[in-house]
């Protein structure tokens, strides 16, 4: 958004703020580094993809996941407790007749632990304003054209729940194992702006 000069000005502002907060003992440099290491190493759409692949191959897990995702996630060594507080996770399933897509119109709520840091478009006014009003036009910009018979539900995460889409399993993947299936699942598939 900002030009190079504006960026360096803001970088200086941030450095000064950080130095003063560290000097005052409010935050620690090690603490900040640890927060970033945890985010960059732990939060990834690979986590969400593993959940999807398990749900595609294990009907019992899928049933538990859709009923209560928070109690199903530990089966894969995952949880929703990695952030500032434990959040409720609701997984919504795409079918032949129903398509789900996620947004936060008020800010940028997003299941970072399962999907990684959110893309800029997800945080943009363009996306947040329009997907609740005209989701099909937004999906079309991602190249996703849904048949007329498909009902679209837009989930505006305005409180303490976070959402994840369970995409449809692609045709012709019956022979693939869980790991190979997980590699097919994209971040956009987990948000609902793309099919898998």
């Amino acid at each position, binding site marked *: 958004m900002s030009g190079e000069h504006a960026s360096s000005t803001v970088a200086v502002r941030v450095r000064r703020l950080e130095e003063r907060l560290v000097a005052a003992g409010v935050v620690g440099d090690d603490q900040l580094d640890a927060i970033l290491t945890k985010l960059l190493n732990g939060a990834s759409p690979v986590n969400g993809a593993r959940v999807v692949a398990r749900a595609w191959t294990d009907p019992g897990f899928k049933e538990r996941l859709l009923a209560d995702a928070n109690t199903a996630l530990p089966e894969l060594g995952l949880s929703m407790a990695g952030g500032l507080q434990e959040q409720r996770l609701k997984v919504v399933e795409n079918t032949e007749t129903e398509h789900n897509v996620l947004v936060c119109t*008020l800010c940028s709520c997003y299941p970072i632990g399962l999907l990684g840091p959110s893309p800029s478009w997800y945080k943009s006014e363009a996306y947040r304003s329009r997907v609740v009003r005209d989701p099909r036009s937004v999906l079309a910009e991602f190249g996703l054209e849904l048949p007329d018979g498909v009902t679209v539900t837009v989930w*505006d995460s305005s409180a303490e*729940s976070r959402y994840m889409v369970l995409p449809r399993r692609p045709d012709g993947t019956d022979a693939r194992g869980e790991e190979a299936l997980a590699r097919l699942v994209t971040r956009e598939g987990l948000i609902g702006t793309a099919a898998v």
Partner: protein
Amino acid sequence: MSSFTAGDAVRVRPVDPVGHTRVPRYIRGHVGRIVDAQGQWPLADDRAAGITEPRVETVYTVAFPARELWGEGTHEVTVDLWESYLERAAEERA
């Protein structure tokens, strides 16, 4: 504690608070259908105002047909709403 159950018709109170709230303006005054109760959570409005003992209320997932919100469209929008944002609506609108 929860006043509403799945299927109930609810109206988003047509309020316009001065401070922080988690009611998007596009649903204010509109009628939706309770999908789900999510358990009890501290009210964001109170926490944002620095109230140390915020009200704790049931949060509901509420579904709104596009036609109710925009006068057209076939999709549905669901929004997560604290109980005090909602009031019971006449059944025929849901």
